[in-house]
């Protein structure tokens, strides 16, 4: 291939491949805020005296878990959403909490909550059924 042709091809590729700002991200801001708020209100609804009671099926004991940090990333799963947060027990050991939400008439309702069980989410991520919300 002649050199000018190679150079021209590279330049065209450069021009076409320059990063373009995507303003569409702003549209999802409200939804993300509302989803985060919905997750926070749901966790809040689960708390008793500031702690979320969780039944450890292995030991058969109830454990108090304290909300510490919400994960900023929101994932979609078809028409549904998955949000994650972090709980800690009294000893400070972190324990994830995954919330599966659905949009019901403009209101986000949590239809499943997984505490300390991330394997369903990981399985779906492996299968590509879950991806970040843009």
């Amino acid at each position: 291939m002649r050199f000018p042709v190679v150079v021209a091809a590279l330049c065209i590729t450069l021009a076409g491949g320059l990063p373009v700002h995507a303003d569409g991200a702003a549209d999802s801001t409200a939804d993300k805020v509302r989803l985060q708020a919905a997750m926070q209100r749901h966790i809040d609804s689960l708390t008793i005296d500031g702690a979320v009671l969780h039944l450890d099926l292995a030991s058969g004991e109830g454990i108090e878990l304290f909300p510490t940090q919400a994960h900023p990333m929101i994932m979609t799963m078809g028409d549904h959403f998955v949000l994650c947060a972090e709980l800690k027990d009294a000893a400070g050991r972190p324990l994830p909490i995954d919330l599966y939400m659905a949009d019901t008439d403009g209101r986000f309702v949590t239809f499943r909550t997984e505490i300390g069980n991330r394997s369903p989410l990981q399985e779906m991520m492996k299968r590509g059924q879950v991806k970040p919300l843009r």
Partner: protein
Amino acid sequence: MAAASAPETTQPRWPRWCRLDGSANWLFAKLALLLVPGFVIPASIGLWSLAALDMEAAHDRLTSRIGNAAGRVAAATRRIRDTGIGETAMRDAEQELLGTLLADQAVRCAELFSGRTRDRLSLVPPRIGCTGEAIDVSIELPLDGPDDDRVVVHLSTAEIALARQSRRELALIMLVGGLAIALGACWIGFHLIVGRPLESLLQAIRLSERSGEARLAPHRSNDEIGRITVAFNDMQTRMQADANRLRQAFLDLDRIYNITPALLCATDAAGVVTSVSDHWLTATGFARDDVLGRPLARFLPAAAAEVYESRVRAPLARGEAVVDVPLRLKRRDGTELDILLSGVDDRGPAAQGSSRLFVSTDISDLRSAERRLERLALTDPLCELPNRRGFLAHLHASPGRRPVGGMLDAVLFIDLDNFKWINDTYGHQVGDKLLLAAAGRLRSCVRPTDVIARLGGDEFAIICHGLQERATATRLADELIGRLAVPFDLDGVKACVSASIGIAFTDWENEEPDEVLRFADLAMYTAKQDGKNTHVVYNGAIGQKAVERARVRELIRDGLERDWFSLVYQPIIDARTGRIVGIEALLRLACPTGGPLGPERFIPIAEETGQIIELGHLALTRGVTDLLAVGQRHCSAGLYLAVNLSPRQLDDRLEEKLDAVLAEQPGLAGRLVLEITETMLLQRPDDVARRLHRLRDRGIRIALDDFGTGYSSLSHIQHFPVDIIKIDKSFIRQLSAGASSRLRPLAMIRATASLGQELGIDVVAEGVEEAATIELLRDCGIDLLQGYLFAMPMDRLSLDKWLAHRHAAACEAAHDPRVDVAADWTTQRPVLTG
């Protein structure tokens, strides 16, 4: 005026560290053109992707922070409502809760609305709310109560835009900086890896180009450039080796070219000398600078230059080789040398145009020797005059100088008379001196333009050019005869010779040079026959005689081969008894086509040509045979046979022949008579006398024929063994004249007869034709008679019959002396035959 030079191209001045060559910079530019997009595109994509992820994370963090805060505020507000506190306190608590949202700088303002009345229940910041603030997103959050109140949060995403801007700037800085670093690193790498080795390679190539010698480039790496350098150095090394071999080969060739013992030179197509060998320069004496660049023809004499143009340059221009063209070459000192020039036209593919290579061989010495040999071949070494070849060469050159205006050339053919006698008598040294002296006298008589030659022996020739009249040549001939007639004093020996000169004139219109000389020779021969010491001018009759002589010579030859010769016999009668005592054999030639030829015509020519020897042998052999046959049949055992002997026959071969004949017939010697003439006695008298004595010792008798007509001298009879004298018939015929006229012949006959009687020599009278003369002759004392009166010459058969008729009675009365000869022969003349 010199043409304007081409404008110099201005090259950009590069720093030395980066200056390689325009082409090398272009090479890097090309690399950069590939490098920039190749770097920018993936870097841009990567940075954009990172920025996008970062902005996404920032967006997520913003929404998470606001959402969590708003959700907790909404939950707290709900719980406050559930506490049942008063309206005002609840509003204040709600106001404070909403105010906590303002702790996040992204939140511009927040409002609480009643679900039933749609009135705003609270507003933060109080009283001003979102006035003057840029609101990007407003989020409405229900409080999940029966009154369906809701919180509305107004927020700005400026921090995301700000973050995006900063990310862009950072990406641009990273891109530009990365690109600059990449380009710089690439340039340094290019310079170190490619540029510097290439520069070294280029420098080596340029030095090699300028010096013509191999230059090696420094070798620093084993990469592709290094391998190129190694390959270049290997090529240079091989080329250096090849160049060394070529240089050595050239030196060897140049040495061979210069030491080759031949004159070598080369010219271009225009004939301008391009190279010469040392040998060429040595031979000519020129310096090389005197020759190179000059036309080769300039070093040739004018005549040779013409030959060079026509026989050398023209064939070479046609592509033909030239071999051994004789030329002359000028030396620097003005002398010339002879050369043989060979040349080829070199049109080889490597030649810049056509060139001619010449090889010359110096043949000056050879030419000199050749000229000496030619001079020797054309010159008589004794007299230093042109010899026959040289004279003929002059004659051949004469037509080129053909005179005009009716002028003639004359050729004088000079033969010294009696030279042989002097040579034989005094020896060759005297003979040579005589020739030298004669040549000198000839020289003194001719003009400088005339050419004298010694043709051989005592023969000289002169060619006189441009004569106005024939008399000039005849006067010259007379002068020559006169000068040569003056006796020569040859160191005490006085030699007298004369000259016979033949003259032939020519205007070269019809005669060839050889023919003119032959004409002069014939004329000289005629002068000899005319008695010598004279000159004869050639004319047609002389030529005809020569032709006739040639014809007779041919007839003699053919006659000998084809047996055209025969013998006739004439009887010799005893004057007293009338008996036949002998017969003389006479040779005859009868050509079947040309008729008979008399002996007077062919004998002289046979003597000239030497054929007489063979004829003599023929006559002797055949005569003896016939004599024996005749004698047996007719009781003629006493007849003798007389055979004529030519002077040229008198040699050893004759004696051998006679010995052979006598060996077969021992008793024949006394019946053989050899007749000689007085002329024979004049030539080589001592030798002749010795030979005649030897013949006589064998019993053979000698007869002196034609006595009285030649150089008759009594001393001949005294010194030579003569048995018979034959008086010439001219004397006998005079007896038929009147009485007064026959006194003198009678006296001479009588004296001869008396002399014979005194010396015991028989005397024969020839030519007896009348009976009246018989008595006269008998009275004079003549013993024997011969003539037509008795018998004409007759062949053997006729002789046989004649003898049978005449001697039948004689055999019966062999000793009867009384015979009337006159009466007998008068009445019985024999029938002539043959």
